[in-house]
């Protein structure tokens, strides 16, 4: 049902930009999403981390919204669910902090630190990066979509 609707919206020539933009965007969006997750997951080893990766995730969705249309972006991830994901990310961060309280200190690094320079290392820091990444990605997307929907409403009212 949802898939059919998306397909219909993608093929609608009246929505979004030209075919060239759509074709390029279709390929790059997946790569951008992948890169965003890479930045988040390797945040404790290389530059980047939750915030930078989250911004990249939001950019992927924003590109989808610009290239195709706002309607298809809203079908993929509605503003309601973007806001829910935003709050879930923050909730996860605080809950991890509270779990640390059980080990003695707030935000205590209670997991095993592992070997330096390996992917599974640094205790809770990758988890915190992931929760920040989800939060920032969803929040930026929600901000962008909120401003765009609301700004359009104001303009339409004027006409």
């Amino acid at each position, binding site marked *: 049902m949802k898939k059919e609707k998306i397909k219909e919206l993608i093929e609608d020539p009246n929505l979004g930009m030209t075919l060239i933009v759509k074709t390029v965007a279709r390929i790059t969006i997946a790569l951008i999403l992948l890169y965003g997750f890479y930045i988040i997951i390797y945040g404790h080893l290389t530059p980047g981390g939750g915030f930078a990766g989250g911004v990249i995730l939001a950019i992927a969705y924003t590109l989808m919204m610009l290239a195709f249309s706002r309607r298809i972006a809203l079908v993929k991830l509605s503003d309601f669910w973007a806001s829910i994901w935003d709050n879930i990310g923050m909730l996860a961060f605080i809950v991890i902090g509270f779990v640390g309280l059980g080990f003695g200190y707030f*935000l205590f690094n209670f997991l095993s630190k592992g070997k330096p320079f390996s992917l599974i290392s640094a205790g809770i820091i990758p988890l915190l990066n992931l929760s920040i990444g989800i939060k920032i990605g969803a929040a930026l997307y929600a901000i962008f979509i909120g401003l765009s929907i609301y700004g359009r409403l104001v303009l339409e009212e004027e006409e």
Partner: protein
Amino acid sequence: MGNIAMPLTVAIPMLFAVLILVTGKFWRGVGSYLGPLAAFIILYLSFVLLGVKDTTYIMGGWIPPIGIVMVLDGLSKLMLIIINGIAFFSIIYAISYMSKYTAQFKFYALFLLMVAGMNGVVLSGDLFNLFVFLEIASLASYALVGFGVESEELEAGFKYLILGSVASIVILFAIAVVYNITGTVNMADVANTIGNPMLNKAVIFALGLFIFGFSLKAGLVPFHAWLPDAHPSAPAPVSAMLSGVLIKALGIYALIRVTFSVMGAPTEILSIIMWLGVVSTLVGVLLALGQYDLKRLLAYHSISQMGYVALGIGLGTPEGIAAGLFHMFNHATFKSLLFLDAGSFEQSTGTRDLRQMGGLMKKLPITSIGTLAGSVSISGLPPFNGFWSKILIIAAALASKQYLAAAIATFVAFGTLASFVKVMRFSLIGPLPKIYQNLKESPFSMTFSLLALSIICLISGLFYIFLMDSLFYPATNAILKQSAYISMVLGIGG
């Protein structure tokens, strides 16, 4: 493990704010249950912390000056009591007052974020975390000022947003300068390495920037332009929080912390703070005299009363600082009481213009009692608390031979009295306009807060000697003993 309550005073309101945001999507009324619950928990925690002896809490087990540290001393305890007490009464009041707004769960979430930010400011042990928490509290307050999305509220909110952001950026700039000089942002470490601040020109520059930023947040003249617009435009519980607590936690508290605990209170800087205070008292009250908009009048009085606090602090003597802190506590109680009263009048009569009110004593008895108690307190009539703090500030000014400041403070006290005689004359007595014949007293949750705050005003006036000994002199000691602060945080010298 009493000190575990320290991170919880910040974490619990944040947790509840997020919980309200998640569940509010499915059930809009959730805020009016979870919000007061969170406010009650943190109020309880701040009373628990009052009994804990001065200590530090290290976040995540990293020792200072490398790790993030939270510091609890007399001043922080006092501020926690003020913030969480006023927040509790305001949020109880908001249950009825905010029920007319559609997205009220967002109000509770923003409110709790603001409280979390302020608790973080008063507990934080390093300059950068102070800045981050200050920004959390400020951002929440910018959004809350424009919460009603009417045109005046938006205009005031935008003005506040621009000026507040300038202040925040200037504070960040000052932190960068301090970091450049000392290579650390931990307050105790900075204090340890900086030595005499008046010998280093860069430190004086940083101090100037700090004074600019924090005075703007505190609304002291000449940085007061945003305050009389922003405070009246917000919904009443938010006005009470902004005027009652926010300008103290972000402005005066941070100013005290930076000038006394970090920089060691150089006398030149103290006299600048004192004269900022004296000018604020005078300008605030003169501007307030001509006002007929009740909330705007109260906002101008906030400027004037914050001037008293700055005057007391700027004297630099133990008596002056204790009196200033006492006045800060009193101002929090009576100014939030008056703003809540104004909200109650506004909700019943639909206007804030004093000229359209009159004779409301008969129709709104409890609100009128609250207005009476608040007005008597702020004008400084015994036995209410405002009298004692003002007379202590004037006495302290006389004792440190600041005769001009004492004379201005006395004159301003009479100006305040005149202004509030006008408020009572226009709102409480006189003929009742015909349209107000069917007025009803506000609902229980509003009158509960009003009565409770009135009783606090009276009690803290009657038992002020007890309060001075148990709250304000420990806070004064914490301010003046810089070496004790450094050794407590860094663990040197026991």
